[in-house]
């Protein structure tokens, strides 16, 4: 090993070292920045439970910030078999925290005395949620058609539209 060879080896090591340090700092800064972005919840499964007369949602929170469901509203569109013409439930207050990077099950109890769901009924649920970085209220609307089975997984083409409302 002479001085010239040492010079090249040292330069190569310096490059690798700078790469490592820069990568480490950039990675952690990016991770911090991405961690502050709230994720939009995705309803991956919805089902009607006949015995407890409630609709159960499985909500995935894809972000690293905890979200809180503050209220739910529920719009019912009658199908052919049901006798009820129309009914609506609005703003059921709730305080359900959605865990980061995980699935939370939220159950929505229907009004007592109302008829149970029949096949062909279309249910439109709207979930209002907040995140700790702002005072705004965000909503997720989810529509599914009840087909009559007790436990139901909706088809894969879940309609999940996100609206950002300032209320």
């Amino acid at each position, binding site marked *: 090993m002479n001085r010239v060879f040492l010079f090249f080896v*040292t330069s190569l090591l310096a490059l690798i070292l700078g790469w490592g340090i820069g990568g480490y700092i950039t990675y952690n800064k990016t991770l911090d920045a991405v961690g502050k972005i709230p994720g939009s919840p995705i309803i991956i499964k919805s089902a009607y439970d006949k015995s407890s007369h409630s609709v159960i949602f499985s909500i995935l929170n894809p972000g690293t910030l905890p979200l809180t469901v503050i209220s739910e509203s529920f719009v019912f569109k009658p199908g052919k078999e049901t006798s009820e013409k129309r009914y609506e439930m609005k703003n059921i207050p709730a305080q359900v925290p959605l865990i980061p990077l995980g699935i939370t099950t939220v159950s929505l109890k229907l009004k007592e005395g109302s008829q149970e769901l029949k096949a062909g009924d279309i249910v439109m649920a709207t979930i209002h949620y907040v995140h700790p970085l702002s005072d705004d209220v965000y909503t997720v609307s989810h529509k599914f058609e009840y087909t009559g089975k007790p436990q139901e997984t909706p088809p894969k083409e879940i309609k999940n539209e996100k609206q950002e409302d300032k209320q």
Partner: protein
Amino acid sequence: MNFEKVAWWIFWLTFGFLLFLIFFGISLAFLTATSVEFAYILGLVSFLLLGNKLLFGYGWIANVLDIVISSKKVTDIYKDRVKRKLQEKGFTVEEKLQELSFKALIMLAFKDLDYYRYSYYGIFLLLTLITIMAKFNLLGEFVIGKYIEGVFWGAATVTFFVWGLEQLSKVSFVEYNLLGIQEKTEKEG
């Protein structure tokens, strides 16, 4: 004479201003650092303290050898420098040092730094092991691994300079041996 004084004053003023800028920059780096950058600075500073003796020791040897190689002769000035350095480090038997050649004196200086070298690389190896264990979650918390890695990169920066200076001084010593420079006994002013 007067010109020389002015030149010195200009030099000291510039040097002082440079020191002030360095101090300012380091303070700014400390104040604005995020947590991972702070971990990096912490590792850098602590390993600079640990490797201080090695950095200056190998740098000093490389510097002496560089002068000797470029001037292609060993005068008593350089031999005396190495002798004084060795006496500072506890080689007190002066008669023995007087008998030794320049090559042997340099080898003694290398030998003296070996203890510090082994402990420095040993501690760095330990830190590397802890970092790897933390990155593979063997120590439990992921949060620790994030900051241990910053300390490791700071230590690696200092280790790079320690290793580079060590290799430079050893390569210079090999080069000095290959040149076969004759020692001159008479003093040159």
